[in-house]
């Protein structure tokens, strides 16, 4: 018996106002696997990621998280808000724009969902949050508010916030695209550590070298279609299609 996939996407299609952004996309992410989704802007990669936690609703196809379908309940009807929230709690998401809650301190950003969604006591949540803030190197900033932090620091807090729900899968939507170049490294370092710890991750990124170093599988999207799906060494050294070859020449000429 094969292990149940952490994320299983089957025949996903999605249009915005008549424009098809995803066409019949299928993808499996195994537990512990790191999958990078690459492609030029407008290729549909962020939409694909946002469908996984139902921030975007696909028109066709289905998505399962550890075997359970998201968005649609067993009876075939759309999930209730509560059921959907329960499914989303199993997925951690990190956004390009950090999306921290400005009225809460660093520590309270991280403890908010464990306390008010999972029902942890404040003491338990604080303990869990402090361990995670330690991990991302932000423990000494716990009492500060988001506006005092740099972009890299905000993103590290956002990662700790997502991890605090102990998700089965972490989703990263261009986590370094909004950062100044000198701050990219500190965020990538944290994500790399997570990959070593065995977290299951799906990553949309423009950092080619990084994708190559951390991924077990690389997926290339072009106009909403997966045109290559392979191991990073093969993808970067031996791309099967001209489209990917051209992309790599533009994006990562040094590699």
């Amino acid at each position, binding site marked *: 018996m094969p292990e149940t996939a952490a994320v299983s996407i089957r025949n996903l299609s999605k249009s915005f106002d008549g424009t098809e952004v995803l066409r019949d996309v299928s993808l499996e992410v195994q537990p512990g696997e790191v999958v990078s989704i690459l492609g030029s802007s407008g290729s549909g990669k962020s939409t694909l990621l946002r469908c996984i936690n139902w*921030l975007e609703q696909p028109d066709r196809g289905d998505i399962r998280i550890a075997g359970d379908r998201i968005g649609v309940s067993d009876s075939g009807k759309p999930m209730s808000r509560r059921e959907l929230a329960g499914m*989303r709690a199993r997925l951690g998401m990190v956004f390009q724009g950090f999306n921290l809650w400005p009225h809460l301190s660093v520590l309270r950003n991280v403890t908010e969902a464990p306390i008010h969604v999972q029902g942890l006591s404040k003491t338990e949540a604080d303990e869990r949050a402090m361990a995670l803030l330690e991990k991302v190197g932000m423990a000494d900033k716990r009492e500060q508010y988001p506006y005092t932090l740099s972009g890299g620091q905000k993103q590290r807090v956002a990662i700790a916030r997502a991890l605090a729900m102990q998700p089965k899968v972490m989703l990263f939507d261009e986590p370094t695209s909004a950062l100044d170049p000198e701050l990219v490294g500190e965020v990538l370092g944290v994500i790399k550590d997570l990959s070593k710890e065995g977290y299951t991750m799906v990553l949309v990124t423009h950092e080619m070298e990084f994708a190559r170093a951390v991924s077990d599988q690389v997926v290339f999207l072009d106009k909403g279609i997966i045109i290559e799906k392979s191991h990073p060494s093969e993808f970067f050294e031996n791309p099967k299609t001209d489209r990917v070859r051209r992309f790599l020449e533009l994006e990562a000429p040094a590699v």
Partner: protein
Amino acid sequence: MDSSAWGLLIQGAWTTLWISGISIAIGVVMGLLIALLRVAKIPVLHQLLGVYISLARATPLVTLVLFIFLTAPTMGINLNRNVAGIIALTLNTTAFNAEIWRSAFNNFSKEQREAALAIGMTPWVYFRRIMLPQITITSLPGLVNEMSFLIKGSPAIAVIGVVDLTRVTNRISAVTYDPLPPILAAAVLYMLIISLLVWLQRLAERKASRLAV
């Protein structure tokens, strides 16, 4: 002015304060509820609330006070003056507050909402824990502004015989034949009430500036 005149003046101030205070308290909460209902865009209800807001905002307070006080008995409702005054002030301020809350809803960051939903919050938890604390602070300057308008407009309830801080000055000068001192004293009391509100508003603005970044 002797001490009995001051006593009357303080009584009038107290009437203005408690009638306005109750209207403000109900009006802020009702305004929030109406804004929520309007944002939900429930058919028919949405249009009805829209009509209410337009009417309430377009009607002068004095007209509204008289209308409530005079129509209630025709429907068999026996309204005490104070209650009629509170209803009229509340209907007026609720409409303005609903618009203040609604604009705060509409301007609220979509990104924060996505972060909350993605982490597993239901829309209700998101509203209560993430959105409400922030829109309360950002709406406060507007709400406090509206509160001070209401207090300054509250002498309208004198038309149905409520003896408020303005009306009481008439009563005092009817005895003393010297209208200026009670009017000046009333003005000072209004200024005290409003400056308390303005002070609260400053406090809120200082807090809000932290959220603006």
